[in-house]
């Protein structure tokens, strides 16, 4: 699956798309792949504050739980309720329908330091080598 150019990516495999002071956050195709079939997602409620680098939720497969780390700081304005009933969307459309939360950013600081699509692809390719080695 292609990694949208308009996104920025974290080393923990979250993506963030910024439009003005609003941002949408999700996990990458690589992440969902590593995780396997997603069975449950735990997300913050609207109004909750999230802090860059801190965990704001979890994604669960049958035998693993992964924390989701905030790529930036802000206030949650919407959480993707669809995922409660259809967690599998995260496997099928991680960069689209399976966005996790929309936030109003308190500061854009740090976002520019995140990886762009090509840097991220290089990054996971590199990781791939390590693990197979």
């Amino acid at each position, binding site marked *: 699956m292609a990694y949208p150019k308009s996104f920025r990516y974290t080393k923990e495999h979250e993506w963030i798309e910024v439009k003005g002071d609003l941002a949408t956050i999700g996990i990458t195709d690589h992440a969902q792949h590593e995780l396997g*079939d997603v*069975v*449950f997602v735990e997300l913050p409620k609207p109004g909750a504050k999230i802090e860059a680098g801190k965990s704001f939720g979890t994604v*669960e*497969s*049958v035998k693993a739980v992964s924390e989701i780390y905030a790529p930036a700081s802000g206030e949650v304005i919407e959480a993707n309720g669809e995922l409660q009933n259809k*967690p*599998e969307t995260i496997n099928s459309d991680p960069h689209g329908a399976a966005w996790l939360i929309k936030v109003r950013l308190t500061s854009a600081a740090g976002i520019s330091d995140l990886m762009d699509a090509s840097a991220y692809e290089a990054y996971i390719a590199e990781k791939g080598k390590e693990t197979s080695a």
Partner: protein
Amino acid sequence: MNEKIKKASRHVSQSEGLIFEKSSPGKRAFELPPLDVPKAEPAKALAAHHRSEGVEGFPEVSEIEVIRHFTRLSTWNHAIDLGMYPLGSCTMKYNPRVNEFVARLEGIATEHPYQPQELSQGCLRILRLLEKSLLEITGMDAITLQPAAGAQGELTGLLLIRAYLQKQGNPRKKVLIPDSAHGTNPATAVIAGYEVENIKSESHGQVDVEGLRRLVTEDVAALMITNPSTLGIFEQRLPEIAQILHAKGAVLYMDGANLNALAGITRPGDLGVDVMHLNLHKTFSTPHGGGGPGAGPVAMKKILEPFRPVPILVEKENGRLALEPVRPDSIGRVKAFSSNFGVLVRALAYILAYGPGVRQATEDAVLNANYIRRHLEGVYELPYPLPSMHEVVFSDAIQKKNGVNTMDIAKRLIDYGFHPYTTAFPLIVPGALMIEPTESESREECDLFIDAMKAIAEEAATQPEIVKTAPHTTRVRRLDEVGAARKPVLRWKPAAPKSTAAD
């Protein structure tokens, strides 16, 4: 070779529904003797609390149906009684039947925890003898038999440590736990109010003593160590590790899950351990029963004795025994009533049957593990080559090349009539095969197991599909765990009547 591979069992596949699906109003499987006092009027006696109908949905079946139902279900289980059950770190040994018999004796099973202690001396003397025996086996000074299982024993142990440090003014913050530890260790530490700091094993899978030296500060309350480790390897520098902790006023906790490798050979107390729990359903043969009941006594050194949970078993004048409910420094109660007494009875029956001969059981357990290791080394990769004690851990590295992983091999083992070994644990071994035969396996059974493992390795190399799609002989094939977790169905519900389906 083929002469030896005699064992291949297939699981009975009788179809059997849920008991609720057999229910029909008016059937009875149990009748009470007639009431010999005037009938009460529930509606009057209980007023608003009265439930006039019986429990909605409760089954109504006959006795033979109950017997058949559960007997059929039983045939879908593998069990120690059917064959080797080499689950690593679970010590699936023979459960002697006399233990079941004595636990059900009148005067043992029938006793009420609140009956007068002068009428409970038999129970108390059983507890006393078990205490003494376990202390002798562990080399400790004091013990509590109260915890209901290993995990609760762990909690009790950590609460003892906390109380002890508290008494000295500072409960401290951290508990150190090796990355090879059982999941209960970190979970327990948190409930006891400690932060968990994981410590890496060194290249041979042992605790990195030099690294530990650096980690042990005034903040560290204890190290929780499993010995032999979950790799089945004895922690050779345990006494030194104890010194490092003691030097900083910290305490050494030992997870006794693997005591089956040590009983009668060496004693944790002598090795410098300050407190440990024992899993009576592992080393001391009380039945696992599909996941309990267990018992998790905690043995300790003098320094921790004052903090033991109440009630405390004490000897009074002229040899009478008593349970004392109050102790100033006690951590309190961890379970209602004295203990899982029935489990303790079985454990003592096991100890009495062996006596000092328990050493022979340990030797046989270690002999079996090493025999299996010797024959499967090379066929399966051995990630940590240090000497094995009661269990041996291989990895699926060789089979991975053909896309066959430890779970596939485990499932194929079922087709050969064995229960799988423990898969994917310890976490420090990718694709682990954790094999613990216990002393209860004859050489013949070990050989059958070895042959099966070799046959599977061969299949993995030449026709992996047959392994990857295993098991083929069970009532059900691989189950959809994803579906089960996404839309949990956790109870039976009667089918909705057609009529309501419309609206």
